């Protein structure tokens, strides 16, 4: 678990981070979002002591981070940065094995772990182990970056805009893979990004920062339903907000059992998002969809009227 309470960082006269408090429970994914220069990277780097905080407490697994030796602390925390920071003079295998070697694992253990991780991240060992970073594409290089961060199996993973330099298609692919990886590994992740869609997609807990302060934090849905101010709302995409919220909701949470009327023509799988359902309704000029399970057997139906009614109820309950 990571806990920051009333943490500030001052560089001379300037306050980069101003009295922030947040808690990331074990196994949760926390995204720090904000425009550039809002202090999100500084906050991240205070956790592995690349920057020492000026005030407040940062607590890791019940102990203040000042207690740890910074070097040993960093070896326990995975760290991924935007431009990968891979060592250009080391091949992929050696780059991934860095932290285990620093921890003096045996050569056989290091090799086994490296192969396991390359497998996990979809990098065939035979093809990639002996390549050098300059021979990799941006996406491949960042996979190596993530593998390197996971090498010593740390509980905590810090990611500083890891996909910021990638093209949109590669970025989305790596986001999906990271989500899958997180579902398997349950690391405690702090993820810095300026891309709200990325944060909404990946995070359990969203922290919006502005000028060194936390403007709002909470679950992605809570933020979408009730942004604290116009800044958060504009980050969340203004008018697009409704669709973003729909993207986070599954069809099966809004379907009703089959009504007395005939089943609708269009069919949608139950684990698709509400956003996809709305898109399908628009495409097929229909206000009703038949919900099917993975074997394409109808299990219920989804109606536009009901979605809207439930959204009103959600908003009402969020107000209370």
């Amino acid at each position, binding site marked *: 678990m990571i806990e920051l309470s009333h943490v500030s960082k001052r560089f001379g006269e300037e306050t980069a981070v101003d009295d922030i408090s947040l808690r990331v429970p074990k196994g949760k994914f926390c995204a720090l979002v904000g425009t550039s220069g809002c202090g999100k990277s500084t906050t991240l780097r205070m956790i*592995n002591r*690349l920057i020492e905080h000026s005030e407040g407490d940062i607590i890791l697994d019940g102990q203040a981070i000042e207690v740890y030796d910074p*070097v*040993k*602390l*960093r*070896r*326990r925390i995975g*760290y991924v*940065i*935007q*431009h*990968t*920071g*891979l*060592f*250009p*003079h*080391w*091949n992929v295998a050696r780059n991934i094995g*860095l*932290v285990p070697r*620093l921890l003096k694992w045996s050569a056989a253990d290091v090799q086994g772990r490296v192969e396991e991780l390359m497998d996990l991240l979809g990098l065939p060992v035979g093809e990639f182990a002996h390549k*050098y*970073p*300059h*021979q990799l594409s941006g996406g491949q290089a960042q996979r190596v970056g993530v593998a*390197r961060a996971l090498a010593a199996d740390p509980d905590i993973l*810090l990611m500083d805009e890891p996909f910021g330099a990638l093209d949109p298609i590669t970025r989305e692919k790596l986001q999906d893979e990271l989500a899958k990886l997180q579902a398997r590994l349950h690391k405690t992740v702090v993820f810095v990004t300026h891309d709200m869609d990325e944060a909404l997609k990946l995070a359990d807990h969203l922290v919006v920062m502005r000028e060194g302060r936390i403007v709002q934090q909470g679950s992605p849905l809570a933020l979408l339903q009730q942004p604290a101010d116009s800044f958060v709302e504009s980050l969340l995409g203004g008018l697009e907000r409704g669709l973003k919220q729909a993207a986070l909701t599954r069809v099966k949470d809004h379907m009703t059992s089959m009504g007395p009327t005939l089943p609708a023509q269009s069919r949608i799988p139950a684990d698709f998002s509400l956003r996809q359902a709305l898109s399908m309704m628009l495409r097929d000029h229909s206000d009703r969809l038949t919900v099917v399970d993975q074997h394409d057997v109808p299990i219920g139906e989804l109606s536009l009227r009901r979605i809207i009614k439930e959204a009103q109820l959600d908003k009402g309950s969020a107000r209370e």
Partner: protein
Amino acid sequence: MSLLDALSTPRLRWDGRHPNTVLVSLSLIMLAAFWSLDVVSMAPNRIVQGTSYGALEALGWPGALLATLLLSFIGILAWQPSPRHYRALLAAVMTLMALMPVGLIASSYLLIDPELPQARLGLGAAYWVVLFVLLLCLIEIRLRLKLTRLWPTLLLCGVALVWWLCATLWLDSLALVQEFKARDRQFLRAIGQHVTLVGAAVSISVVVGLVLAMLMRRYARLQKSAFAVLNFLQTIPSLALFGLLLAPLAWLAANVPLLGQLGVSGIGTTPALIALIAYSLLPMVRNTYIALEEVSPDTLEAAKGMGMRAGQRFWQVRLPLALPVLLEGVRITTVQAIGLTAVAALIGAGGLGTFIFQGLGQAAMDMVLLGALPILMLALVVDAGLGALAEALRPGGTR
């Protein structure tokens, strides 16, 4: 940039339709030089001014014809360049270089009267021009064929071996060989002194350079003043620096007995070494500093974030990544020191410069060459060797 790369053009395209104008004009220059300038000169003894001979007299009809054919061959092949033609061109250039001493053997039979044991053969202007232009051709061909620096260097070493064999076995009458035979012991000792002086100066400046560069990184204030001093040192003419050191060192040697016993004196090795180090420090420190500074901050940030200690970051990341640029500094420094050491002969430090200044004093150009040629060769060998090493050490084979 290596000396061999100095004339490289950044972008080269394969273009079979257009002649390679560089090689065609080089071939024409060689033909013109071969037929218009003197090929060799012959003197009955060391003192008398030699007589010059052109291509026909020096090599006879068959020799002159063969040389002309080979030289035109280069131009003809370059008219329609293709990878195969470039390989043939490489072979032609190498053959020409290897045949050059054979030409000298021929002229020694044709021109030298066996009755005159003192007679000596000198290399004429045409020989030097053709040799120089052939080296230019080699650079152009190397770039077109995208060869690494290693291959031409190895081929040139082969050519040098042929030259050396011909010189020792059949070219007794060549003036250069005679100058060498007259003082072969002296020559070997001079080479030894030269290499020792350069080696000592460079290794000391590598260590001092590394320490200074690291201090500069720690204390930013030191950087400006240190570079100011080193820049100033670089502007003093070498001869003046030797002169400036004479008085204080002589005084030290006279007044501090320990230094005197260690062999410190106003002239000789000590001032030469001090001056060489003074000149070597600027390129060494500058390159070391830049090499260490230009390592990507992302890489170093990652190294720190992964939990590498300061020492591990320096030895495993910063230094290996800086090494190619650092070696460039060593290369520049060494080549510069090889040249400067020649001047050190003036203050009695020995080395190959001795022959240059003696030769100048006696107006014996062949003796000057005996000193100058090995200096040139030494510089080229060091340049190619260290250049190839730096290339090989590029991280992960990046360019």
